[in-house]
């Protein structure tokens, strides 16, 4: 990839801003959901869907597409809003989030939204699903890549490490994980509940190539990591992206109160105003 231009970054930032607004509107309208962990992974999703991944919104089941799995399924609003920006779903549909009969279930549900690779929402499973898709790619000699977004708290699940061990042993270089390291889980700070540090050493010792992104909201940094990851042969890669929970809304940033609580009407208006004004 050529060095990304300033105008390209500006475009990505605009998309991220629209997605942030959609996340606020969707969760606000639903009256529930997880805005904090959705806002923290916006730049990661935008990078993937608008720059990194090979995919075609007109042909969602294209066999050559790069695959994406939102293992931290509670980030569903961010994923849906991103899919809407790409044109996979109508933007109007976003406000049906969590409503009866909606394709946009509280957590990603393949039964309702078949373009998903798999349903997610119970933490710890997505990386293993990615392992299966990566294996299929190797068997079929396809060159698609598999991207799995995992949470930081999610990394407390043992299954994540089963998948980590398997992937490096089988040299799944078509598998790339991203950890949205926003430092919080439902009950509080990860460092206080069950610390995952030293997390870089853990992944390295499991045989993964690790890239650390100090600012997971900086497109230049994120895109650099994805490009470097693509070059790695015979090893799976993980991008540890340091992010801010609730990023983009001052009263949500680092405020775990908004892990699993939607903004009320007044908060929604304030948040939307802030996102619109800031850039």
């Amino acid at each position, binding site marked *: 990839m050529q060095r990304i231009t300033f105008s390209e970054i500006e475009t990505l930032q605009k998309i991220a801003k629209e997605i942030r607004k959609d996340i606020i509107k969707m969760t606000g309208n639903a009256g529930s959901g997880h805005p904090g962990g959705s806002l923290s992974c916006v730049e990661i999703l935008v990078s993937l869907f608008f720059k990194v991944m090979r995919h075609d919104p007109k042909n969602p089941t294209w066999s050559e597409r790069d695959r994406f799995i939102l293992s931290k399924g509670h980030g569903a609003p961010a994923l849906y809003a991103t899919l809407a920006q790409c044109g996979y779903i109508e933007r109007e549909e976003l406000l049906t989030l969590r409503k009866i009969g909606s394709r946009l279930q509280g957590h990603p549900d393949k039964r309702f939204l078949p373009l998903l*690779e798999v349903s997610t929402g119970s933490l710890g499973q997505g990386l293993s699903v990615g392992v299966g898709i990566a294996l299929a*790619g190797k068997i079929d000699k396809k060159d698609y890549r598999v991207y799995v977004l995992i949470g930081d708290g999610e990394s407390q699940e043992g*299954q994540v490490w089963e998948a980590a061990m398997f992937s490096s042993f089988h040299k799944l270089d078509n598998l790339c994980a991203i950890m949205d390291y926003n430092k919080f889980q439902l009950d509080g700070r990860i460092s206080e509940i069950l610390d995952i540090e030293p997390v870089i050493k853990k992944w390295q010792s499991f045989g993964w190539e690790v890239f650390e992104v100090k600012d997971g909201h900086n497109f230049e940094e994120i895109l650099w990591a994805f490009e470097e990851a693509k070059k790695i042969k015979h090893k799976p890669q993980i991008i540890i992206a340091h992010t801010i929970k609730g990023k983009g809304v001052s009263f949500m940033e680092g405020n775990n109160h908004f892990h699993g609580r939607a903004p009320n009407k007044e908060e929604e208006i304030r948040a939307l105003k802030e996102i619109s004004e800031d850039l």
Partner: protein
Amino acid sequence: MREWKLGKPTREAYGETLLEIGEEYKEIVVLDADLSKSTYTFLFGKKFPDRFFNFGIAEANMVSAAAGLAASGKIPFCSSFACFMINKAYEQIKIGIAGSNLNVKFVASHAGISVGEDGFTQQSVEDIALMATFPGFVIVAPADEFATRWAVKECVKHKGPVYIRTGRPRSPIIYNENTKFEWKKTKVLEEGDDVTIISYGFTLHIALDAHDELLKKGIKARVIDFYTIKPLDEETLLKAAKETKGIVVIEEHLLNGGLGSMIARFLSDKNPCRIKVIGLDDTYGESGTPYELFKKFGLTVENVIKKVEEIISNG
């Protein structure tokens, strides 16, 4: 009593059949969790090493990866002991396969107490109950090697998740290579209008032995091989409930959530009749030979006869 000729264990028939169909179905991939020598999936692995994955002792990873493989157009066969694959990866099956409409075949061995000496940790007496909770799953429990071969071949043609229950010991031969089975159906092996005896898997021969003993007493028992546990063969059940005085179910499974409980739930609504279920009553198995354990837990010809006579005398 009939002279039962022992055939291959159903788990071995599974492994051999996989090997047989591996060439025809290129989409088949086989996953195991360090028990491939027990589940006989190693046979497939030897011939098709590129489509065989040993996940090591990590069942959750194996099952979720099966979801990923299925999402990519493969037909994964997932195997291990029933208690490990199902119990340890129960939620992975729920989210990744049942809740994602994906086409994965689960074939687990060491079901029931006929596992024997290994004791309760290796004996799955809850697999049917657990697997039956998954919407859309087809559950098949073949009684012998011939039924197993049929079930494995047939499940590939079925688009959707399937669980096939297999066992450890050599199974009495009940069928032959020409026996016809129907997908999602059951099989009446003996006609009779006095009572109905239902079983599946390894214990089916006990039902047939009971039939013979009852005949000597002038009691004609209908014997049904309920090899399809889900979906429930309602037609056959209704017929049995209407035409006979009651039903005895014998299964090497816990009473709670086993086939007997499913039958009772269905018939109590559609056609109430006497139903007596022989199985594990709120307890686990233990070490011993299969038949010592059957005796200890009442899975015997004598107990079936006793239950039948209770029904007939309305006791």
